[in-house]
């Protein structure tokens, strides 16, 4: 590239060559992730789409058409509308989808108020004292705790409740709401609520830290202006600071939820890994909610499965056909995660555009 001049020492060219090579190595490393991502998606997609195997179709044409209708080819409607089955051709992800949906909703319900509340306390109320430092250090350590340890915690604290209630007595707490009653099993046992609470503990540090960052990004002039108008601290937070930080908080929350959605490990020990042929609260469609609104209250105390668990179960299955089902499940899971991430990015983007302080 450069013309050698007398000024150049002889080994300068070599140094430039080394530099160039180094740059290529680094550039390659950057692309490595992209390549792996591509290969991963292709191989999983290929596995998912090569089902049912062509060979399995009998020669007889008439049965073949019947067969094609009755198999739950991955990504066909039947795949979404059937429960898991011992026959790979009939297995689907209905229970898993609803389980995951319930988990996400419950985790959001638990983690958003608590997470944003903690962040508000840390950023707006606590002055830089020992307590704040302690909580902050604690948060960064909790964020590094492996998910399987949370699983153990969930099993001990929610499924078994530290053994405070013995399971044999089959105790349950009947909560009287105005119109109806809810049976709350104690301990929670291997139900949706145990799983949701466990995942909540898992994502809380992420939600808190993301919310803190969003709150910190709100310019202090907003707070000052609000105080100057005679607003109290909570009014300032509630009407000015939190709304201004909302897009940032939402982005963080959605990313955290999408992480929770893909987590299988914390749910393993909760024991959600059983064969489940029903959906929480027996709700399989939106219209079921109107037909049986009580199902909404029962659902958190039902046994459940979830997408990543169903996928793991299929991966672990000795019959090779289930590998294809697992791939199909993975495609569904990845699509949902991609949608969630896109949503988060859209919010972030819109927020950056629309707000100038």
């Amino acid at each position, binding site marked *: 590239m450069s013309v050698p001049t007398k000024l150049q020492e002889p080994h300068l060219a070599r140094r430039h060559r080394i530099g160039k090579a180094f740059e290529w190595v680094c550039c390659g*490393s950057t692309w490595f992730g992209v390549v792996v991502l591509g290969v991963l998606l292709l191989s999983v997609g290929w596995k998912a789409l090569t089902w049912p195997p062509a060979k399995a179709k009998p020669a007889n044409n008439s049965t073949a058409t019947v067969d094609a209708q009755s198999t739950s080819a991955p990504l066909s409607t039947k795949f979404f509308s059937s429960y898991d089955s011992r026959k790979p051709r009939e297995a689907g992800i209905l229970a898993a989808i609803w389980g995951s949906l319930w988990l996400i909703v419950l985790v959001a319900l638990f983690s958003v108020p608590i997470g944003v509340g903690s962040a508000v306390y840390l950023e707006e109320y606590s002055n830089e004292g020992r307590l704040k430092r302690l909580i902050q250090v604690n948060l960064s350590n909790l964020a590094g705790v492996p998910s399987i340890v949370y699983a153990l915690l969930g099993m001990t604290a929610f499924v078994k409740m530290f053994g405070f209630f013995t399971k044999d007595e089959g105790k349950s707490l009947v909560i009287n709401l105005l119109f109806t009653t809810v049976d709350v099993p104690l301990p929670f046992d291997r139900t949706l609520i145990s799983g949701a609470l466990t995942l909540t503990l898992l994502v809380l540090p992420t939600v808190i830290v993301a919310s803190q960052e969003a709150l910190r990004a709100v310019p202090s002039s907003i707070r000052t202006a609000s105080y100057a108008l005679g607003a109290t601290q909570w009014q300032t937070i509630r009407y000015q600071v939190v709304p201004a930080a909302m897009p940032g908080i939402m982005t963080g929350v959605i990313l955290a939820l999408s992480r929770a959605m893909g987590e299988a490990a914390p749910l393993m020990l909760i024991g959600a890994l059983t064969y489940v042929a029903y959906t929480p609260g027996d709700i399989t469609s939106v219209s079921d909610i109107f037909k049986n609104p009580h199902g909404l209250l029962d659902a958190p105390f039902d046994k459940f499965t979830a997408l990543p668990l169903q996928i793991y179960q299929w991966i672990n299955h000795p019959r090779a056909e289930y590998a294809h089902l697992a791939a199909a499940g993975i495609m569904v899971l990845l699509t949902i995660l991609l949608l969630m991430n896109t949503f988060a990015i859209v919010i972030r983007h819109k927020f950056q555009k629309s707000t100038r302080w």
Partner: protein
Amino acid sequence: MSLANVASPLTPPKAGLRLQKQFSWVRAREACVRAMLLGCASLSLLTTLAIVYMFLTEAVYSVTPDTTAFFQDVSLWDFLTDTEWSPQFADKHFGILPLLCGTFVIAGIGSLIGLPIGLAAAIYLSEYAKPKFRRMMKPVLEVLAGIPSVVYGYFALVFVTPYVLRPMFQSLLRIDVDIFNAMSAGVVLGVMIIPTVCSLSEDALRAVPRGLREAGYALGSTKYDVSLKVVVPAAFSGIVASFLLAISRAIGETMAVCIAAGQMPRLSLNPFRSMETMTAYMVGASLGDTPAGTIEYKSLYAVGFTLFVITLGMNILANWVMNRFREVYE
């Protein structure tokens, strides 16, 4: 000045406009809200306490009568030195070494792959890449980080082992590669930690002041020299912290490892055989629905405790290093 400070007559305070605090619902709500938010914030402390309480009572010393904790049944010495882990057999052994071995072999392979690639990518993004390329690459890395670990496990099982490892090692080098093997688990683990290493190291590299780079160029260094001999050493502790966090993640990683490496506790260094990590054991034990109170059940807590202590130690170390790094440049 004299005129200025001659006290002119004061306006009498207007009635009903007193400044004094009075009881009001607004003030009461203020206090309530504050207390509630403090409650939320201390929940994270409670979580930590619950984890510690759980491990102490289930693994170290039982507080409920008639039950024993794991280390009341199995001596710590046996746990740490026995070379066999066989809780499900009649002749039970509880030596953590095979599990530790599996964990560290796999995390080691993952680190050997993930750390250099992650660091190189970070150097490229912070020193060489155009801003546009960076903006394009960051979301890809985020996606990579967002892929669930079951998916990586599946990828290892159906792609890495049959299409990468077997052709390379079994066909060419005549080394037997099990279907479940530590190598494939290590490889995907390496991929999984790349985003962590890359983004944290990049932050560290970018925090190095411009002046330092310019000083390097002024001395006639090439970009390569500046990157590798000025910027990287200056960001060294930040990079180390990112490595530690990544390794700690690798050690705690569960599903991918459990799917790809299998569940065969083995004290060996052969990465082409099936191995069991601490995390995989915990998953496996939960599959068989071990009844509470049995020694196998309690062993879950012992293994979990070991894992917790190791990862916590690494995280604390990483945070300490990171803070030292911040002190230098902020």
